[in-house]
């Protein structure tokens, strides 16, 4: 009886060759990624800035220009706080029309039914009135929760309601200026928007009210 023929195991490559191969490809991969990053980053930043400008334009009803004001602990400032990053620092946007303030555009976040909802809303600090609202990011249920940005009648309410918002079910309101009629079938998503706006205004509202607008050049 003979033992079954087996193939001899292939000799392994030396450790140096293994490290050299992986290291070499790692360096090449890194160089390639950095090159593409450098080439695409200006356009990605420009896209983000254009999307933000379009949203501000929508919620402040087409201001002539707007100022970026960074939120610090006790005030709004034209200058970025020391050590802050212009892309990640919290900011509000003050719109200008015919030399007068046209309202603040403020970004707010809050947990929705599926995921976090990110929105921007226009706000007049003197009258506490909202000027408009646009959902920037949402994964709410198609056909139900997504009505928070697809239902034109619901979205239009944000141009006339006053803060702090109070969500009411259809037919149950008392006609108060702070009432916002929620969407039937999307109550949780509607409440999420209301809560996100109210919470943000609780925090930055006093800063907006105390801010003395000084127009900058567009």
């Amino acid at each position, binding site marked *: 009886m003979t033992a079954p023929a087996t193939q001899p195991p*292939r000799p*392994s*490559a030396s450790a140096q*060759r*293994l490290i050299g*191969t*992986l290291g070499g*490809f*790692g360096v090449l*991969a890194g160089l*390639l*990624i950095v090159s*593409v*990053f450098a080439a*695409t980053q200006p*356009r*990605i930043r420009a*896209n*983000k800035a254009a*999307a933000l400008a379009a949203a501000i334009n929508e919620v402040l009803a087409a201001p002539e220009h707007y100022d970026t004001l960074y939120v610090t602990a006790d005030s709004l400032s034209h200058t970025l706080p020391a050590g802050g990053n212009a892309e990640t620092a919290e900011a509000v946007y003050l719109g200008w029309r015919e030399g007068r303030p046209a309202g603040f555009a403020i970004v707010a976040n809050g947990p929705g039914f599926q995921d976090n909802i990110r929105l921007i809303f226009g706000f007049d600090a003197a009258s506490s009135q909202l000027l408009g609202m646009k959902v920037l*990011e949402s994964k709410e*249920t*198609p*056909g*139900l929760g997504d009505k928070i940005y697809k239902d034109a009648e619901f979205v239009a309410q944000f141009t006339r309601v006053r803060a702090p918002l109070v969500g009411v079910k259809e037919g149950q309101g008392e006609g108060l200026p702070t009432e916002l009629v929620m969407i039937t079938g999307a109550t949780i998503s509607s409440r999420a928007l209301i809560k996100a706006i109210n919470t943000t205004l609780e925090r930055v509202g006093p800063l907006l009210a105390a801010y003395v607008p000084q127009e900058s050049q567009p």
Partner: protein
Amino acid sequence: MSPRKPTPPSQELIKGVWRENPVLVQLLGLCPALAVTNSVANSLAMSAAVLFVLVGSSLLVSTIKRIVPSDVRISTYILIIATFVTIADMILEASVPAVHKELGAFVALIVVNCIILGRQEAFASRNSVGRSLLDAVGMSIGFTLTMVLMGTVREVLGNGTFLGISVMGPHYEPWVIMILPPGGFLTLGTILLVFSWIKRRGEERAKPATAAAGPAVGKAA
């Protein structure tokens, strides 16, 4: 025993479309097929990303196959695939930001898509650059056709539109479930059923022809 006849190059291209379709036959890449086919635009964008990664990786892997030691080949393939995926992700974000946002993490997850690594290990690492290119393009076409088919069914039924253009009229009540996750499973299951039925019917039709030609000598397992 006569040596195995080499597959004609045209077959390398065509096989991925039907006979070895990556989704419908090999059942690979099911994660994006279920997750991002809720619209035709998303299906096309994901397919373009897979085409870019699969073709790029196959070209590179088939070129360098002789210099990569066997012990680190999988790590090297993953490194190459991840590089192409990162590049595809950045290009998509720069050129079509809305679609990039819709696809979310699924572009980055192409790194772990079994179609890509599977083709590198099973084909590109054993074949010439030309054949690997044909194989990658064929597999990408097969993937794209399946994705677009699923995207069409789901978008038309679930939203009443095709590429955002209304096709079902103003009185159509969309089947919202079709653009939700269950719609992905329902559509994929139905397409697999129909595909399997067509394939089986073809095999049954071929049987009498084989029997008439003469008795079979042996049967492959």
